[in-house]
């Protein structure tokens, strides 16, 4: 039996471990507790989680794309487009809510499908594909709404993003956004453990081996883009509800999502990392922003913080992998 022959290894490395990001999150929470003790009160913490749900969802979607070796820079514009489209289509009529929700999900998946096909079939580098998609989506949505958002969201639609189940014992309140997040996160975790999820990571690690083992690499990557588009659609529903309709709804979210994924220990270029790490990375990033807020640091510096995190994370992993060779 193999079990009997197992020999101890000098060190066992679980590189997709989420310990570092959990540690970082705990440290940040402790710091926040010092600066703003109220923050950790159950109800405010629950609200914080609800507010963070969209970026966590986007990080989960981005995880699928990054772990297979690509990027999706179109998610921010997709969120904007979805919010504006939803407002115009619902036009404050509650009966339109559910059909529009369905439409948004289909639309998100379709945008992902196009991103994926252009990247895999036409061999356009994904950052160019998705940046081009960014331009197209922003242009199209402005064009369609003649430069100013029209219509309005129904109360039913906005409920997901800004209402909560109130007066819950112990927790105070549970935002609907948090429930949506929990459901989507569970689906994401199940997906990463499925055949598809494992194959996806293999594609990011070594597409040659995957291809020679019968994996349909192009199809797998395209599905990853579709998942990212779907995640953006759900994020758009929550964000539209929370902050209302504007052309600014999704601005910069793609960079936030990528930063979160990198922070969560997922390797840019693919092949390593967990979706839980990516989602915790998003939560950590939001906590960091909250801390910046409480300590009076300008929110405008967010981009700088993201840039520093990306460069540091990539530089560290690049140096580590070159020294281990």
């Amino acid at each position: 039996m193999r079990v009997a022959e197992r020999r101890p290894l000098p060190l066992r490395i679980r590189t997709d471990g989420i310990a570092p990001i959990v540690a970082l999150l705990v440290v940040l929470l402790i710091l926040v507790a010092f600066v703003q003790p109220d923050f950790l009160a159950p109800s405010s913490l629950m609200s914080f989680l609800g507010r963070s749900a969209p970026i966590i969802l986007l990080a989960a979607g981005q995880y699928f794309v990054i772990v297979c070796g690509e990027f999706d820079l179109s998610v921010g514009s997709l969120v904007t487009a979805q919010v504006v489209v939803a407002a115009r289509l619902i036009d404050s009529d509650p009966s339109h809510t559910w059909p529009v929700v369905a439409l948004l999900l289909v639309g998100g998946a379709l945008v992902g499908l196009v991103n994926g096909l252009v990247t895999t079939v036409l061999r356009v580098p994904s950052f160019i594909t998705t940046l081009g998609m960014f331009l197209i989506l922003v242009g199209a949505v402005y064009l369609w709404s003649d430069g100013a958002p029209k219509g309005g969201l129904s109360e039913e639609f906005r409920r997901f993003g800004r209402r909560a189940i109130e007066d819950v014992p112990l927790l105070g309140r549970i935002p609907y956004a948090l429930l949506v997040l929990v459901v989507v996160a569970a689906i994401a975790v199940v997906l990463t453990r499925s055949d598809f999820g494992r194959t996806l990571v293999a594609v990011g690690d070594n597409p040659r081996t995957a291809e020679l083992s019968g994996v349909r690499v192009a199809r797998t990557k395209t599905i990853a883009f579709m998942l990212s588009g779907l995640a953006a659609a759900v994020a758009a529903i929550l964000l539209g509800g929370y902050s209302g309709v504007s052309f600014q709804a999704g601005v910069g979210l793609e960079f936030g999502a990528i930063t979160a994924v990198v922070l969560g220990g997922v390797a840019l270029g693919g092949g390593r990392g967990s979706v839980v790490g990516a989602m915790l990375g998003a939560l950590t990033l939001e906590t960091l922003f909250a801390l910046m807020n409480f300590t009076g640091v300008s929110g405008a510096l967010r981009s700088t913080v993201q840039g520093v995190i990306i460069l540091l994370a990539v530089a560290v992993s690049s140096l580590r992998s070159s020294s281990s060779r």
Partner: protein
Amino acid sequence: MTALSLRPARHAVPGVFVALALTLVIGWLVVMLDGGQLFNQSTTVSLLHVAAGLGLVAVGQTLVILGGSLDLSVAYVISLSTLVAAEAMNGSDGALLPAIGLALAVSAAIGLLNGVLVTKLRINAFIATLGVGLLLKGYLDNGYDGPAGESAPALVRTLGYQRIGPVPVSFLLLLAVTAAAWFALSRTRFGHHLVAVGGDPEVARLSGVRNDRVLITAHVLCSLCAGLAGVYLASRLGSGAPRVGTEGLYDLESIAAVVLGGTALAGGRGGVLGTVGGVLLLASIDAVFNQLEVDAFFKQVIRGVIIIAAVAVYARRAMRKAGS
């Protein structure tokens, strides 16, 4: 010897100039049918102004792409440069040259940072320059809500609005920079080595090329070009503008112009003349749309499609090459 057709390596007219000519002819016809005039003084001047700004960035972008790298931070470098220049000038002609020097020095420093991240830390160029871009974005978001500083009147008069016939001084500046870049690529060791590094880093290294130094130099030159574009935009706008680079999509458009101009996105093949063709093509499409009074947002959709299509066509060509 086998009967091989040994055409000399001087490339024939790149396809982009054919596309440019076609665009101009068709555009001229369509605009005329629409009752307008494509080649009147004001449209020509504004076309050349658009080309000057984008062209300066794209020529710099050509250098890094030829070397197998990429620069996504140019849009932020442009914005920063407009601010540094305009704030240092503060409306006085006396500070003109020192301010330009300062703007270029800041840009060069950013290029140096990009180059070091790409070569010494071996970070993928896309990620490295994206990260640097975000750093700058945060600085700009934090420090500026709107236009700041005031460009020196002399700069506005000359670089901004002076022209010789229909040709703006800024376009002449672009031609000068292009000529310098062309000269550097074909007549200096740096140029030869840069193309070699982009073509095959291992071959270059084995032939004694110092790859890192060459690539860092290219990044510095690229940022310098973006900085110069910033100075030009400051002269047009009369002040520093914290979003002008990103709103002008100079990052993506410059890459698109380079690719349209026949330079391989993977490096090692191409040149600045094609890039100028790509720039003129994009500027012409813009001019035609302006004449037809096409919606600005529709223009943006078309821009996105053109960028993806240009790269897709390039990728097909590269694939056929690899397959043959």
